[in-house]
């Protein structure tokens, strides 16, 4: 183990987002270009300044709108001269490419890396394309047992938490209710109407104990970020500094046969993150914790030490701690349950805007330290950002 923390040489110098929403009916490439050009402009750069390019997943095929343009294709369209590139294909990457980009600029392999992530799941599903998430089965062994969706695995983590710690649906609901009240303040969010605990409990059960409002919304939209060497920070309008990163994948990348439902990969990821900084959970002003299924947010809260093991249900109950003005404003964009499912990158966008004091009506006053956690189950990456040099 080294004490070097090369990720601190990286900043996010520019942030871009295309139109986002449900069933936009727009081409994936068009959305991607909108987001990328906005991010490059926001960084105070020209496309010709970009010398690194990465996304995940970079795989052939549409996969029901889960995959955007490939790195090779986007390079041609933007006519980029690259000294570093990564088309990540690993099934568990999620936000990992952001860390790879930070290490590339830290190593001097590139100066400005464009990181993008495009989803057109809402439009693709409406057009009848089969839904496909790379992490899910197609595994004939699992299909034999009627297991065809990640929600069934997420439900097992929830069942375990309810059984072992006495967590209730009324407590878990606060992940969704808190998301929704924040979404009301976010013009980009898909679902902005008030959600009550009665609505939540009455919704269709998907995989017990997870109901409809515990599951995120297939969405359309592209996000892009310029990751630059910190030497560039004076030229960037509102740079965000990377303080520390964490990644973990214990034993398996599969959702199946997970050895210990008391933990997700998040727990090892959080240990690594906090080992790379002198900051701690008490220093975090705003957090975006992955809510592809609501139970993941509870487990991230515990993994990151915002509360003790098994205490996340009482921690979120009532919503005071996790609302704007609470001790930990959480998922201030509305999260994937209400803003839309951008597979982690929506949280990166939101935390950057919070640290740049550009979060509009949902701005956390004086936010200086922000945390993003991506993935659930066997997948985990986390990033700690600040707006201080």
């Amino acid at each position, binding site marked *: 183990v080294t004490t070097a923390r090369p990720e601190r040489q990286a900043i996010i110098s520019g942030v871009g987002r295309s139109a986002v929403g449900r069933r936009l009916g727009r081409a994936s490439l068009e959305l991607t270009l909108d987001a990328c050009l906005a991010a490059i402009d926001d960084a105070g750069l020209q496309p010709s300044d970009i010398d690194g390019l990465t996304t995940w997943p970079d795989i052939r095929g549409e996969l029901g709108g889960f995959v955007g343009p490939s790195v090779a294709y986007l390079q041609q369209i933007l006519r980029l001269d690259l000294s570093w590139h990564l088309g990540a294909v690993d099934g568990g990457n999620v936000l990992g490419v952001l860390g790879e980009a930070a290490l590339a600029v830290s190593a001097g392999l590139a100066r400005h890396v464009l990181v993008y992530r495009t989803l057109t799941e809402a439009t693709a599903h409406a057009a009848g394309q089969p839904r496909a998430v790379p992490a899910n089965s197609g595994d004939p062994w699992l299909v*034999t047992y*009627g*297991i065809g969706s990640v929600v069934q695995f997420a439900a097992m983590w929830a*069942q*375990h938490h309810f059984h072992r710690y006495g967590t209730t649906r009324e407590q878990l609901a606060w992940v969704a209710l808190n998301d929704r009240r924040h979404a009301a303040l976010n013009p980009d969010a898909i679902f902005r109407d008030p959600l009550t605990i009665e609505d939540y409990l009455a919704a269709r059960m998907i995989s017990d104990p997870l109901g409809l409002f515990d599951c995120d919304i297939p969405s359309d939209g592209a996000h892009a970020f310029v990751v630059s060497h910190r030497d560039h920070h004076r030229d960037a309008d509102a740079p965000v500094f990377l303080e520390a990163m964490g990644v973990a994948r214990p034993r398996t990348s599969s959702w199946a*046969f*997970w050895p210990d439902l008391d933990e997700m990969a998040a727990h090892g990821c959080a240990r690594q993150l906090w080992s790379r900084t002198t900051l701690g959970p008490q220093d975090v002003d705003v957090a975006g914790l992955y809510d592809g299924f609501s139970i993941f947010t509870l487990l991230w809260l515990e993994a990151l030490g915002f509360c003790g093991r098994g205490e996340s249900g009482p921690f979120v109950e009532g919503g005071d701690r996790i609302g704007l003005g609470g001790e930990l404003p959480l998922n201030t964009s509305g999260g994937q349950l209400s803003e839309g499912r951008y597979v982690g990158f929506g949280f990166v966008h939101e935390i950057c805007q919070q640290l740049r004091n550009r979060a509009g009506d949902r701005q956390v006053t004086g936010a200086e330290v922000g945390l993003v956690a991506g993935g659930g189950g066997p997948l985990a990456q986390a990033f700690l950002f600040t707006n201080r040099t």
Partner: protein
Amino acid sequence: VVARVRLAEDPDVVLDTNIVGSEPGGVRIGQPVEAAFEPRGDIHVPVFRIAR
């Protein structure tokens, strides 16, 4: 019922499988189960029922 079963013979081994012979409301975490085999397509696969 979709379930994760840990083998008493080797706690390192977990199986994602089905509990058969019980309604969803009748299955509880921690209940001992025993193996059974059911035809699924051309093969027989291991499933579990609540131990008697």
